[in-house]
């Protein structure tokens, strides 16, 4: 039973770390394309950002720690860790690599202050979860590994549920205007989708309520029969692909899909605990 559980967790780790690697490589490559932002005339210049309060690093080394060369070094580490995570079986490198990605997440969020998004947050969650699961597998401690699964699946359930709950209290989401409003922007919108939505208010309302309903009902995936749970997660994956296509949210796909193996393991654990298996 324990061996079977460890095999399931090992498979979960394999899929999760591969998707974490995809996110780590994509996010690092996109930051590399934005290195100009960190220069003295860039939007994230340290000349100004050093003025913000509550910086954790001592003043004497702060300039070196947050210099453009340090940003490059951190991103190179993230890429190296991402490449090593692509080894197609649980390996001893998984723990240090996921910890390295986790530390790079902390560093980038401190250095940039502005510009982070939900993909960075979920990337951080996945890196933490993969680190815990890897430690559990390395130490042959199933409970330790399962706590990593608990962390990832718990944050995934919270992420979807909170996203839905925050929308249901919003009048612009309930009346469908949020969809048209977002689609009409150049930042997150899509010209064809905007012109399609502009003439179909009922469709906008339907899509907004579909988003609210499915996001809020996400916790039920933990209780559903495995076939239904997998089908539901496939629908959520399509939702992320649609967001990537219409809104340019390309980096959200990988870390959110990376939560699904842990969600399926949590589904199995919950159904087992309820005596449904």
């Amino acid at each position, binding site marked *: 039973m324990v061996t079977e559980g460890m095999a399931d967790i090992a498979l979960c780790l394999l899929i999760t770390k591969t998707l974490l690697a995809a996110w780590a490589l994509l996010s690092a490559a*996109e930051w590399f394309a934005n290195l100009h932002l960190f220069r003295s005339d860039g939007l994230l210049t340290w000349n100004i950002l050093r003025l913000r309060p509550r910086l954790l690093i001592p003043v004497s080394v702060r300039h070196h720690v947050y210099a453009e060369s340090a940003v490059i070094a951190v991103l190179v580490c993230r890429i190296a860790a991402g490449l090593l995570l692509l080894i197609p079986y649980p390996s001893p490198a998984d723990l240090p690599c996921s910890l390295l990605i986790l530390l790079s997440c902390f560093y980038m969020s401190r250095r940039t*202050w502005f510009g982070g998004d939900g993909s960075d947050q979920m990337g951080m*969650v996945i890196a933490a979860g993969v680190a815990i699961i890897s430690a559990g597998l390395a130490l042959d401690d199933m409970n*330790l590994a399962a706590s990593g699964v608990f962390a990832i699946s718990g944050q995934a359930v919270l992420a979807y549920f909170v996203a839905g709950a925050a929308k249901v209290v919003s009048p612009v989401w309930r009346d469908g205007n949020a969809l048209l409003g977002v689609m009409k922007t150049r*930042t997150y919108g899509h010209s064809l989708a905007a012109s399609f939505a502009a003439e179909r208010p009922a469709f906008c309302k339907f899509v907004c309520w579909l988003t609210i309903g499915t996001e809020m009902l996400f916790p039920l995936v933990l209780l559903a029969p495995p076939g239904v749970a997998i089908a539901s997660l496939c629908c959520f994956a399509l939702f992320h692909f649609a967001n990537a296509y219409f809104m340019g949210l390309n*980096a959200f796909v990988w870390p959110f899909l990376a939560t699904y193996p842990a969600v399926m393991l949590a589904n199995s654990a919950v159904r087992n605990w309820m005596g449904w298996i």
Partner: protein
Amino acid sequence: MSLVSILLYSVVTLWLVVTLLAQNSRFQSVINRFNGLHIIPRWTFFAPNPGVRDYHLVIRERYRDGRLTDWKSVAVYPPRPKLAYLWNPQKRASKILTDAIQAIKLLLKHDDVGPSGLPFTVPYLLLLHYAAHAVPAEPDAAEFQIAIIESTGHLERELECSFLSSFHSRW
């Protein structure tokens, strides 16, 4: 169950509970004080108020004799690439601009800051510094001013000026 497992289960449970609390604005100010590394995520994507405006930064200068130049657009990020669903690095600069502008709007409403204290805040200085370097100074220009323009629409655009800075020395 090993001691390490019990400890980790406790830490993860605490992390999830604090994450849930952090989604409520009542607890955010307290949690933010201890969230320097952004360990506590916020999952309220595009809600309750989704971004329905694009932001643009513009700049104009004042000569020593008091004449003003036309407003010039400050290039912050290029348009979204066609393959943005695969590769979209532009979103970072656009998000930084949006975050800085949202912070300026919040600071303007803040009793401790307001319009008089805003020029001493980091988001304001960040945009001011960026605009001053992104657009070369006109010869003989003494001062400059920035403004935030909000727009909506793809082909037919509606524009609105939502913020106008004071004049600042060019040199």
